[in-house]
């Protein structure tokens, strides 16, 4: 299971990386912006994407839309982990095809639950 973590704050990337490691996911990579993440996804055989919303170059929502529009990547499971908490944004992300939405600050339990739920649904649809 290869996971890409995208957030412009290195502190947050480190926290998520550690939480994923605790859950048994040790194969993780990082990107600090949507614009650097997209080529990594296109070339990298990732199984899961965790991304923030607010990033200076390409935002998480734009990354989400770009991934869903890419023929090779459109089925990639995506979890958004973000401080953005407006209803409109949550709805926009859901309509753009995000698989899960976690608001910051979050707990390890919440992250675990959302990831497990996403993989359950992925398994069920196959």
């Amino acid at each position, binding site marked *: 299971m290869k996971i890409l973590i995208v957030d412009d704050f*290195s*502190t947050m990337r*480190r*926290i998520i990386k*550690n939480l994923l490691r605790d859950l048994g996911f040790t194969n993780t990579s990082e990107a600090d912006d949507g614009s650097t993440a997209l080529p990594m996804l296109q070339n990298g055989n990732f199984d899961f994407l965790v991304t923030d*919303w*607010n990033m200076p170059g390409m*935002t998480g929502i734009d990354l989400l839309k770009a991934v869903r529009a890419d023929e090779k990547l459109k089925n990639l499971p995506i979890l958004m982990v973000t*401080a*953005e*908490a*407006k*209803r*409109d*944004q*949550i*709805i*926009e992300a*859901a309509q753009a095809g995000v698989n899960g*939405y*976690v*608001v*910051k600050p*979050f707990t390890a339990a*919440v992250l675990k639950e959302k990831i497990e739920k996403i993989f359950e649904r992925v398994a069920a649809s196959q």
Partner: protein
Amino acid sequence: MLGADNFDSRVLGDGGVDMLGELKTRALALVEKLEQGDFPGASELIQRINEARDRSIYREVGKLTRGLHEAIVNFEIDVAGSEGDNISHMANAQERLDYVINLTQKSADKTMDMVEAGIPVVERLGSDAKTLHADWQRLIRREMKPDEFRDLYHRIDEFLGQTGSSSAILSEKFNSILLAQDFQDLSGQVIKKVITLVQEVEDRLVDLMRVAGQVEELTGVFSQVEAVQLAPARDVVAEGPQINAQQRADVVSGQDDVDDLLSSLGF
């Protein structure tokens, strides 16, 4: 064009009321001249009426100019930095906030370093204890041979020593983590200073706007401000972390709200 409505004592100041009286007197005299057919006389009166109005305007413009100059100077001192400083106070505020970001970054990294160093110590302690415990159970059940027991004897000694040193290591990590929280105090102080600075800038801007408003009233020139069009570029604007979520209807207050919203929409 100046209308009588704009000439009130607030704009004209002390001379204002006298101004109106003087103008009225002259206007009445003008009408008289015109009725008498005295064109040169009437012309001269019109000239004098204009001069009286002009004097009044010049006086007021002078006052406003001084007021504006003062507001700008204050603004520069508080915001742009007086001649003694090397950088403007706004640049100062930016530097301070950069400092806060760096400080909190360092503290977070240090704390996480301590945690990451402590985790393997704890894990090893746990797994060694588990193995030893299993063997000790065998001993209790009398399933252990004498040479196995000799081995266990030494391993327990080793384990007890390891527990002691692991405790010391973890205590040291915990203390470091505690100390790394000092960023809160330091960044809090810096942020307070920036809040003060921003307040000062706002006060000065309000001063400037007040004076500018008076200039507009005097000249009768009101800038045409078209209805402000919000940039339609993005329909949904990202706002960052919500500070007062409970006061807004368009914002969720936590993960449970997010989950409720999504499931209510069928996601």
